[in-house]
């Protein structure tokens, strides 16, 4: 089946450390480095990695909220692929009717000066989706779908808890009935007790509306419940990509294994591997040579420091970027 979204050789580079009279950058940080990825219709693709690995940047680059420095993103619309690179600002705004984002921080993603009704209505208003009454009706419908009550719509965001704010943000993202949604750690800012409710809402909405998700998380535990496939990211690159079960049963990349060890009480009897400490995380502006993970890898070989492993399909549907992928037997979270 043709994927809904094709991502090819995507790079996002940020200039950092300005100096000189006109502030010419002195260094560059490659937050996303040569990523290729297919996202299929109606699937939930998880994107996991430590803080700073470039997940948010990748998510934004897919929507072209952040312009990629290289590579391309194509969206399948009416059996044809649209290359987002070719679009000007106006056309991009039209494409965004089909691709939306739910942000990480529900306290920052809602304009404090607008009522909930205005917030959810804004995409409809600026895209001229009917007259005032049509729009209000649509707002109420989508708000109800996201578990908001009609009498709450006149209030301002500050009247709501984090979980409810995230419902508002989801309703806004859904207002234009998009096909694809990037959700950037949508529950990481919420109380644990609320997280499950929001995750269920995502699932429900997907079933009802046939949505496709890129679901960003920084730990594997969240992803386990909601994702069909998982991509593991390390320093701007994808190191492993396969179905969720395979990630948990038979991880093939040492970094995935290390991430797995960080999941608390998934199996209390299991012998825990040492958790990755963030202190030794390399600087993303100056990534290690060869395999970027070699500075922290337990299975490192001299070869790894020189040659960068390609992301390749070692078993059907299981992509890994590790020289030793086929010879190592790694410990999954579930045996």
């Amino acid at each position, binding site marked *: 089946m043709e994927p809904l979204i094709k991502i090819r050789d995507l790079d996002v580079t940020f200039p950092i450390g300005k100096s000189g*009279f*006109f*502030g010419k950058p002195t260094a560059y940080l490659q937050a996303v480095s040569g990523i290729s990825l297919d996202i299929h219709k109606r699937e939930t693709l998880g994107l996991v990695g430590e803080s700073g690995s470039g997940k948010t940047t990748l998510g*934004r680059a897919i*929507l072209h*909220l952040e312009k990629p420095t290289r590579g391309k993103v194509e969206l399948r619309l009416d059996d044809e692929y649209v290359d987002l690179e070719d679009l000007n600002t106006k056309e991009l*705004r*039209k494409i*965004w*009717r089909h691709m*939306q*984002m739910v*942000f*990480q*921080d529900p*306290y*920052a*993603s*809602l*304009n*404090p*000066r607008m*009522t909930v009704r205005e917030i959810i209505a*804004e*995409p409809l208003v*600026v*895209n001229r989706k009917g007259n005032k009454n049509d729009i209000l009706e649509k707002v109420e419908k989508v708000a109800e779908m996201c578990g908001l*009550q009609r*009498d*709450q719509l*006149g*209030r*301002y*965001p*500050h*009247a*709501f*808890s*984090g979980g409810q*704010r995230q419902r508002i*943000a989801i309703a*806004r*993202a859904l207002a*234009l009935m998009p096909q694809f949604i990037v959700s950037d750690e949508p529950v990481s800012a919420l109380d644990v007790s609320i997280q499950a409710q929001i995750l269920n809402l995502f699932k429900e909405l997907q079933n009802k509306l046939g949505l496709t998700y890129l679901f960003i998380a920084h730990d594997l535990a969240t992803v386990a419940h909601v994702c069909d496939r998982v991509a593991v990211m390390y320093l701007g690159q994808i190191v492993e990509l396969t179905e969720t079960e395979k990630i948990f049963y038979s991880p093939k990349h040492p970094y995935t294994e290390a991430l797995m060890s960080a999941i608390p009480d998934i199996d209390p009897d299991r012998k825990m591997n040492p958790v990755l400490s963030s202190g030794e995380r390399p600087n993303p502006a100056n990534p290690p040579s060869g395999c970027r993970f070699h500075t922290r890898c337990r299975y490192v070989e001299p070869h790894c420091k020189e040659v960068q492993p390609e992301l390749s399909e070692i078993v059907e549907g299981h992509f890994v970027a590790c020289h030793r992928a086929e010879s190592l037997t790694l410990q999954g979270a579930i045996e």
Partner: protein
Amino acid sequence: MSTTTTATGTLSVGVATRETKVKRTDTATHWQLMWWKFRNHKMALLGGSILAIMAILSLFAEFVGPYTPQERTAKYAQGRPMGFHFIDAENSFHLRPFVYARVAKRNKVTLRMETTVDKTEMWPISFFVRADKYKMWGLFESDLHLFGLENNRHFLHLLGTDQLGRDMFSRVLYATRTSLSIGAIGVGLAFLLGITLGGIAGYFGGMVDGVIMRLIEFIRSIPTLPLWLALAAALPREWTALQVYLSITAILALIGWTHLARRVRGKLLALREEEFVLAARLSGCSHARIVTRHMLPSFMSYMIVDLTISFPYIIMAETALSFLGLGMREPIVSWGVLLYSAQNIRSMVLMPWLLIPGLVVIIAVIAFNFLGDGMRDAADPYTK
């Protein structure tokens, strides 16, 4: 953080709809929340009221002041402040306040004219009296004063007079108008420059940003006081009072804008990356809508705080310049001009009331600081 329990916010209306209770703050706009938070600051309210009173009184200086600033009461030159009374020497109460009469006599030892209080005669103060003619705001003529004496051979100097016999109370009023208006116009100009250049820098970024930021750094690297002095000293002596007034204001604004421009730029750059602004872009909003609907509103409250805080700097700068004789000059009176004439030790010792304008400056600056404190706090009404 999102909870609605600010001290004033807990007044729930008591309407229970289903399981949710509507609190008053839930549907309150940002400005309402800011006001509720602001009014909890008693000192800020006090500061604001003092400044409002100063502004209103001085705006109508011609009407409120019994004299024009250049008018002289020769026989009461260097006169002490005249206290007004309700109860006379015989302990009887008068509904109409009065001042005791003054008689001028030559001191036999020092041979100087001295005025003494004559407690046997009272000069009653009248309200809405017809007295000296003036031209209100230079526009229309009138002779109505808020208060004064009916008999034009008597005189009333609540805060005394200066060396030439000019009424200090009226002069302070006119000076307040000059100084506050210089502050307001100066801050306004600085704000305009700052928001334009800072906005351009912050919105376009890149090369334009680089050039503007370098310019700002250059201006800021020049020590302010010498620069002011140099610019002010360069003003031609023969300029009219109005020209001097306008140029001094412009000079003060020219230096004040850099700070604002930086703040505007920094805030714009930060706002561009705010998640709600990104969400607005994804919603399909045009640049104009993003700026007006999403960026400017969250930015205005911070800018207003900045304006309030920069107000006293401009006022003090003007006062300092005029005090040094480089700013305003007679016949325009400003706080600095008044203090300039109180400069020598003799007048400080013999006529301490000439320092009253200094007291007014201090009160105004403190009031601005209180007000700024309250506003800074209110600008972010979502935290407690």
